């Protein structure tokens, strides 16, 4: 097949059309609109960087950005530590391995919105009644403070995503040459030494993938945020995705929300590229 052939273009046509109309055109239009006073109907006038200047003085936006960053850092670490531990557990000497994998992975099949609602019940009702039984008052009123709301989101996200990350680590652990492990065992390496010097370097490429996935998933989180805390109390657990949504569709500040969305895209792209670059470099060293 050559690019001149009609068949080439016919094979590409459906996705080319869909991607152009759904991603590329809206992206370019979005960048353009972010420099205007667009209100969703009329383009309005061109205002240069005004929207961008405004958003750097927008405390609510900055707060959501900071909250998202904190949440992502804590979640990424926890999800990867738990995910790798689960992977080591189920690839270890256990008979219920298959059943365990199925169990740990299960939350990922259910939508974030629904998972958020389930945990809302647990944090509000179950935690309260457990707190009453064991006499821990601090378990009352979860999700009603900024701190507990933050940890609520972290717990939900770790519970959900650790199983997904586990599956990725398993793929690398099982692809590991068995002889290496056996040799190190015969040489008298302790299990910690085996993990540190044999297993760890070999699963390093899995970090690249799982860091990328956890980071982009936690940074772009919306559904779980919406159904667990709704951004409350007083917008203090509002993450960037939700803040942009509310700016656009509740305050009808379309151009301004779009400027935030462009900044959001730039941040996500920078994080993704830097992260992949750093991890790739680390892999080579090992």
């Amino acid at each position, binding site marked *: 097949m050559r690019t001149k052939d009609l*068949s080439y273009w016919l094979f590409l046509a459906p996705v080319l059309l869909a991607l152009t109309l759904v991603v590329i055109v809206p992206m370019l239009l979005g960048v353009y609109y972010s420099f205007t006073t667009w209100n969703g109907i009329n383009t309005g006038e061109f205002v240069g960087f005004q929207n961008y200047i405004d958003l750097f003085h927008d405390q609510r936006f900055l707060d959501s950005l900071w909250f998202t960053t904190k949440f992502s850092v804590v979640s990424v670490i926890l999800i990867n530590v738990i995910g790798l531990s689960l992977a080591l557990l189920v690839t270890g000497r256990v008979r219920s391995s298959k059943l365990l994998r199925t169990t740990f992975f299960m939350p990922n099949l259910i939508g974030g919105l629904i998972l958020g609602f389930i945990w809302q019940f647990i944090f509000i009702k179950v935690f309260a009644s457990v707190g009453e039984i064991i006499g821990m008052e601090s378990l009352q009123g979860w999700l009603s403070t900024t701190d507990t709301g933050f940890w609520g989101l972290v717990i939900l996200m770790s519970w959900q995503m650790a199983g997904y990350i586990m*599956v990725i680590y398993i793929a690398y652990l099982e692809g590991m040459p068995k002889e290496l492990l056996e040799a190190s065992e015969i040489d008298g390496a302790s299990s910690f030494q085996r993990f540190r010097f044999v297993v760890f370097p070999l699963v390093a490429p899995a970090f690249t993938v799982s860091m990328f996935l956890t980071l982009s998933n936690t940074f772009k989180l919306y559904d779980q945020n919406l159904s667990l805390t709704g951004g409350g109390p007083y917008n203090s657990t509002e993450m960037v995705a939700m803040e942009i949504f509310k700016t656009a569709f509740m305050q009808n500040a379309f151009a301004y929300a779009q400027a935030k969305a462009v900044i959001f895209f730039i941040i996500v792209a920078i994080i993704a590229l830097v992260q992949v670059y750093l991890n790739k470099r680390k892999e080579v060293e090992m």
Partner: protein
Amino acid sequence: MKKKWNIKLEVLGVLLAILWLAPFYLMFVNSFKSKKEIFMDTISPPESWSFDNYIKAFEELDFMQTLFNSLLITVISVVLIILFSAMAAYALSRAKSKLSTVFFFTFVAAMLIPFQSVMIPLVTVFGKFDMLNRGGLIFMYIGFGASLSIFLYHGALNNIPRSLDEAATIDGANRWQVFWHIIFPILKPITVTVAILNIIWIWNDYLLPSLVINTPGSETIPLKMFFFFGEYTKQWHLALAGLTLAIVPVIIFYFFAQREIIKGVSDGAVK
């Protein structure tokens, strides 16, 4: 070396599994209780397994219709994503040129764009053309699903020798016949992966349907669940019955396809 059985590890695993399932257990047992019983005790199984909450939730959710809507949108979208992405990846992998490289990288780069960055113009543009409906939603899913799918198909196609295409061409097959009868069947394992990754995502998607679907009666499960939940925030017994209903189809799917699902997810992430 034969694997020795480690009982401590086994016990730890089972305890963790119980912890992992606890949220589902709590949802399930409380979905059978009355409002009062939930208030009294959230941990124990219900005094009686009454289906009253379920009957009410089933009706309120218009569950059969909602389930049908979700199935319809997911199945059509995933079938079209598979077909169109495989076709595009085939063209890109067989016609090696600068242009193909540019197209390929554009498709892959589109994965980096967070939905929020295109969301607002997307909705306003599609709104102008009266496309905020199920057809428009499926079209959007093709656009958003194509990137990863093309990426996966492209990798698999590069491992299929071109001599196969050439042999079929000499036998008189045209491009479409070569693709459809020779190549596409060979791609079956990767098609399963592409299907699973897209099914999970589209079935569970909330944000896009919430922006696109605005006619009562065509809501998908997550969308309906959102409105249902808002109405019943203080009536946990009904809300939990609704949540359990929403999860049942996923559990059935997982029960029958767990091997393919876990394999699909790990292949999708590793490749």
